[in-house]
């Protein structure tokens, strides 16, 4: 009886994640799809917390829900919420289904039969907070990746600004070449 509640919790999270992800995949309206993604991300954050990865879970909420999702919604709004989208929503629909069926058939047996380097659920230790250990790791073993990530963010920022700024002005009176 002990394990029932955690199990139920897992199934609830998984149901939310997969259900909302499926809705994202099959919804007609892109705004609905974007909002349903909120539940996917949130569900994943809960699952991370459930797995004892508190820092990852919090990052997931802050960055995914608070950052990426907002960006995606901005994207949807800026590019016009095209209502005519409902007419021809998808391309390759059946090919897409065939693809995931094929891939699933190839992957499921491999995943389930694999000799993972894991313990069984029963012998798992109690989960502890990971925040301080991760902070230490980032400043020691993972110092270089940490610095590289900051460089990457800098570059992404500059790149995004340059790209989104577009060709608003030209230098020395040269007009930009336009071609189809």
């Amino acid at each position, binding site marked *: 009886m002990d394990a029932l509640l955690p199990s139920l919790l897992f199934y609830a999270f998984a149901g939310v994640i997969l259900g909302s992800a499926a809705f994202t995949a099959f919804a007609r309206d892109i705004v609905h799809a974007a909002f349903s993604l909120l539940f996917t991300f949130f569900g994943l954050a809960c699952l991370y917390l459930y797995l004892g990865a508190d820092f990852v879970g919090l990052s997931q909420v802050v960055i995914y829900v608070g950052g990426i999702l907002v960006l995606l919604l901005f994207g949807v709004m800026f590019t016009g919420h095209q209502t005519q989208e409902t007419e021809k929503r998808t391309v390759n629909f059946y090919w897409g289904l065939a693809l995931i069926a094929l891939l699933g058939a190839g992957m499921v047996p491999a995943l389930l039969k694999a000799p993972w380097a894991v313990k069984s659920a029963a012998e798992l230790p109690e989960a502890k907070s990971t925040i301080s250990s991760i902070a230490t790791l980032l400043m020691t073993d993972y110092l270089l990746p940490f610095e590289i990530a900051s460089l990457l963010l800098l*570059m992404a920022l500059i790149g995004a600004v340059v790209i989104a700024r577009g060709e608003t002005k030209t230098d020395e009176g040269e007009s930009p070449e336009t071609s189809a």
Partner: protein
Amino acid sequence: MGNIESLAYFIPELILTATVLAVLFADVLGGEREGFDPPANFAFVGCVAAFLAHFTLYSLPSTPLFNGILIHDPFGAFFKGFFIFCTGVTTAMVIVSREVARFKKGEFCVIILCVCIGMCLVAASRDLLMIYLSLELMSLGSYVMAGFSRKIGPSEEASLKFVLYGGVSTGIMLFGISLLYGLTGGTSFEAVRSALAGAGSGIEPIAFLALLMVLVGVGYKVAMVPFHFWAPDVYEGAPTAVTAFLSVASKGTGFALLIRFFFSVFMQPAEGGWATLAPLHFDWGLTIAVLSAITMTVGNIGAYPQTNLKRLLAYSGVAHAGYLLMGVSLMTSTGVEAVIFYLVMYLFTNMTAFFVILVVSESLGTERIAGFRGLWRGAPVAAFMMTLALFSLVGLPPTAGFVGKLYLFYAVLQQKLYWLAVIGVLNSVLSLYYYARIIKAMYLETSSETEPAVHSSPLAGLILIVMAAPVLYFGVFWNPLVEYARYCAHLMQ
């Protein structure tokens, strides 16, 4: 080696990082002034300094760096030099051309330098996290760079296709990496390999799945069929300098990763090269060999109907990825040597070709083969350099391309893969026709309009000659380069 001590092995990257900051400040402080263009020139000087600094690496012993996340060995040092050189040349191309708007050149240089750092790290990584991080660093920069052209429309289209295709590919690769992590519990290469080597025979299906998924990410970088679809579109739409950079440096990254990652994780050293790890039964070499045969054929056939030179060279790049894959599939040190030699040859050859396209298309406003008709009248030097580059791509003596092919086929025949050699040779015959079409247009046809007048700065001419001279030089005196390649083929496991 710890973080601080490792910095001695990290000088080229440090110089590049300092250059990034210098360019950034120069760009912010300098505003938009006429004439001299400090940010881009800083970038070029930084590349030269980093390239010179990378030579100090060869005298240092092979050792793990940064708590084992990176590694220093001749193989990594070679690729660092390779990427920095490419970056320098591309920066020079951007400086002498008008492709990238002047007020954007500073930002462009920041991004290409970051990409270069990412590439250097890929070649030196021996940790799954580092591989992913540095690959993303270079990929993200590449997506942005593809959108820098003044040609509005194709440039954005190229950029968007690139980011979507690349995003999916790296996503799939990441999934594969997560599976490897689950199999072994570690992220360093030797942890993964020892776990794979110690596993029972049941590991086979999942190992293959992980390998295939990682191969998707790598295959997209090197433009390997069937993951090559992005290449022609992106090459066509991106600025020519970026196309040149992608076709050489990005491909080089893919091969550095292919050799470093696959040979370190799925192989074990064996006599004269590598052999597949004991519990894994699949013939990885054969898979790559088959893909290489398909890749070169698809690339060469695809190049036939092209009328846009950049697109044609994109397909030609796919074909050359096929030739290079031949060298990887052998899993011998001779094969790795041949790949290194071929990459150097390809660097000079392809850069020359793209440089000519850049100079000519800026003057004539066209990238089509038809626009090159009668070029030798208007620009004999450019036409000659282009011919040289094309001869080298075909593999005709006495160009470096010939020697490159020679070594590749030599390595292939040494492993007695006769069918692969035959397909490779037939492909190089096949490729002759579409390269000859360009030569024919330049020399044997006349332009319907007035004679093409190509204006270029003396600086551009100088760079062109510096790029083209090695194509001829290594075609005759290739010994030093071979020795160098042999030295650089040493991987630290």
